[in-house]
């Protein structure tokens, strides 16, 4: 029997599992899919937010602000690609321009006093390729870009190093709460544990209902994204944010740590009833391309490298739902939407704090392993293919398999031999960037498939 079972292997679940694994306790992370970070966590903007525009005095706002600090520090220690690009909120209409001072005040109330108003000239100086018609802006210097895939993986890897177990392909279908233990009934057998932590993302409200609660409902919202070719990256070095509620329809134009430009999300009209519906649509992508053409006109001359959609868990409650029920030995961390990436580590810290208040011994063990060193997928740092020292030690780092993204045979082998290895091509993509480049596998898909199949046969 485990001391803790964390349901959900997204960025929040992995952060919580890592935090719990620091205690003198056994931890299992139960994931319905075949990999960590395979749901909404993989499909966002990749912006590490300051929380400047959060709803004032909300728990979510506090967690974002705290999470920003924690994740920035963790990223530096583990090598998660992160770049402090800063952001500019661009006003395109008189109404939006009038809104900027209020936004700056809100930021200050949220504990972020570092925004700075920009006049038109300053906006275009920060964003030379910005489309015509901007009226002014608000600089948010600490907004950063981060690799969402490596973030979840680093948290999961550290959790595993600390002794947590990862269980995949186990979808929780019911719970039996007995005195002293809880049984998670899954599609692949039962898992017994003392405490349950619900970090089930899009399924968090359902799991909450298994425990007899009815306090929040999730409406999945589908957000579509366009990723432009790396040649577009030279057009924009700073995150371009819309004024909330303004003409920009919430669409962010951001450089990515992988060297692309990301435009999104386009939030589809109407509810998504199927919680696995990550289809892209002509309407969504057309809307993004229109927006991209207005914000960064030259970008539309570059190729589209990829389009994707992610679901965000939009709660009917104004704030996130995080609570501890000692009588059920149950914790819920739900209703976390697009802020999950930034807030994850703060949510984990908060959950452990609540457990402590509930009388659980939350003293960290002595002698925790050092934070893991992750393979660098970022363009700003040194990657193995361009590091003569790595290649001299191991020539397979110079043997490129994915040419566009410069992923070597050594990188692929390392991913398979890591603490949280991939189980398919998509898992390998998130660990190495293989096949994520401009050819999308024209040159390397066959070779990558062969390597994945070979590894699958070995394991």
């Amino acid at each position, binding site marked *: 029997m485990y001391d803790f079972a964390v349901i959900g292997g997204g960025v929040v679940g992995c952060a919580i599992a890592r935090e719990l694994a620091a205690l003198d306790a056994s931890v299992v992370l139960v994931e319905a899919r075949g990999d960590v970070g395979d749901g909404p966590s993989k499909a966002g903007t990749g912006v590490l937010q300051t929380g400047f525009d959060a709803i004032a005095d909300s728990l979510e706002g506090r967690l974002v602000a705290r999470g920003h600090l924690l994740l920035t520090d963790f990223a530096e220690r583990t090598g998660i690609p992160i770049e402090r690009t800063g952001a500019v909120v661009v006003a395109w209409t008189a109404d939006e321009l009038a809104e900027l001072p209020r936004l700056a005040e809100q930021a200050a109330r949220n504990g972020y006093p570092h925004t700075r108003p920009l006049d038109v000239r300053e906006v275009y100086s920060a964003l030379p390729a910005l489309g015509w018609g901007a009226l002014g802006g608000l600089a948010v210097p600490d907004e950063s870009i981060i690799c969402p895939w490596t973030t979840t993986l680093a948290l999961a890897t550290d959790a595993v190093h600390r002794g947590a177990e990862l269980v995949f392909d186990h979808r929780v279908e019911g719970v039996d709460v007995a005195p002293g233990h809880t049984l998670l009934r899954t599609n692949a057998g039962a898992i017994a544990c003392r405490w349950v932590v619900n970090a089930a993302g899009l399924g968090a409200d359902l799991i909450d209902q298994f425990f007899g609660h009815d306090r929040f409902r999730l409406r999945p919202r589908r957000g579509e994204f366009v990723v432009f070719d790396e040649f577009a990256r030279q057009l924009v070095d700073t995150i371009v944010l819309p004024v909330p509620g303004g003409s920009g329809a919430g669409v962010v134009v951001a450089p990515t740590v992988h060297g692309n430009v990301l435009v999104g999300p386009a939030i589809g009209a109407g509810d998504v009833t199927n919680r696995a519906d990550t289809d892209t649509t002509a309407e969504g992508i057309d809307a993004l391309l229109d927006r991209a053409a207005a914000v960064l006109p030259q970008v539309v001359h570059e190729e589209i490298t*990829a389009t994707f959609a992610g679901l965000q868990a939009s709660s009917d409650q104004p704030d996130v739902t995080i609570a501890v029920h000692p009588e059920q030995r149950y914790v819920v961390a739900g209703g976390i939407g697009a802020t999950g990436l930034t807030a994850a580590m703060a949510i984990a810290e908060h959950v452990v704090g609540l457990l402590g208040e509930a009388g659980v011994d939350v003293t960290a063990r002595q002698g925790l392993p050092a934070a893991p060193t992750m393979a660098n997928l970022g363009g700003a740092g040194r990657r193995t*293919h361009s590091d003569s020292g790595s290649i001299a030690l191991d020539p397979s780092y110079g043997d490129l398999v994915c040419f566009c993204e410069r992923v070597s045979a050594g990188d692929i082998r390392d991913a398979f031999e890591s603490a949280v290895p991939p189980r398919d091509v998509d898992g390998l993509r998130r660990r190495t960037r293989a096949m994520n480049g401009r050819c999308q596998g024209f040159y390397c*898909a066959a070779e990558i498939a062969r390597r994945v199949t070979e590894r699958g046969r070995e394991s």
Partner: protein
Amino acid sequence: MTDTAAGVFDVGDGRRELRATVAIVGAGPAGLTAARHLAGQVPGRVVVLDREHRAGGVPRYCDHLGYGRRDLGRFTTGPKYAARLNELAVRAGALVRTGVTVTGWDGAGLRATSPDGLLTIRADAVLLATGARERPRSARRVYGSRPDGVLTGGTLQQLVHLQGKRFSGRAVVVGAEQVGWSAAATLRAAGAEPVALTSVHAQPESPPPWTAVGGRRGGIPVQTRTRVIRLLGHDRLTGVEVQDLDSGERRVVPCELVVFTADWIPEHELARTAGLSMDPGSLGPVTDASFRTSRPGVFAAGNLVHPVEVADVAALDGRAAARAILRHLQEPVASAGPRLIAEEPFRWVWPQVMAADDGPLSRDRLLLWSDRHVRFPVVEVRQGGELVSRRRVAWPVSPGRVFRVPSTHLDRVRPRDGDIHIGLG
């Protein structure tokens, strides 16, 4: 890599330097053929670099007849052709280095990564012969899910011909030009059932003769004026939604595989990072008939400059580029002359520059790419607003294949006057 015979020197910082007279990037038909005609003709080394583990380029995995007629005077299969071109280059004395990925420029030199370490290549002339690839589904703005069972034609050919992979189920092939038919034949040979080819054009792009030879065309309908717009199925493909471009009507074609063929884009990363003048139509670098780019000493040939011609035409580019490089090594002359500009319905024309000192065009042909069919084309050439040539061409303009126009159409062009526009009357 440390063998000095191969011309490699340690230059510190773990970086090695390779000196060559000519460095060729891409060991496909154009690069290997250029190497064959340069090696032994220049004082120093001719090196061909390719990131794949085997030389030969795309023909390596196009296991059907149709190669070598124009350049080798024999009709053979892609893999045999690739092996032959490699053998001829090596026999001529070229150094063909595979597993070397050129990642960018280091001043006038090239930067590369290989299992032997980081490499800087210094050469008196560089030939880019990096070829072209097929656009992936997102770039074609095909929406829906991201299931397994979605391939480009090139990936399909590699899986089947390099790895012996078998397929099953129904397949839809997007594109009905030569590579579309080739994909259908490969699918059938690999165990799948091609149920349709789709073409956005009003009539199928003419299939190549070899598909009819084996009777392998039999029974696969071409759905014209049809576009695949959406992929269906969550983990695995279950079908594609297609749209009739005339009626707007949509319907679902159930299938387990979809192969996106053609829709070429040149592999132009090095051309762009070199800051070469680029053609907005072909997306390849601008060159003249001597394959000179806008940067002296950098040449470009093959399907990087005309996406895409058949392999043996790319090889003949390599031969002509070799002659131009030899001339450059004796006396460098920058490319200068009026621009050649493609007019509707043409997307691009090659060459883009008519340099006064150019020799005759490779195969005496201008190359053009059209987005629509024209059955009886009358080619018009204008310079300075004046019609300098208006002549019927005996063969149709067909999308999905290069439209070749005899260079005699340019006989009355004045090399010192302004831009030359080529279109249809």
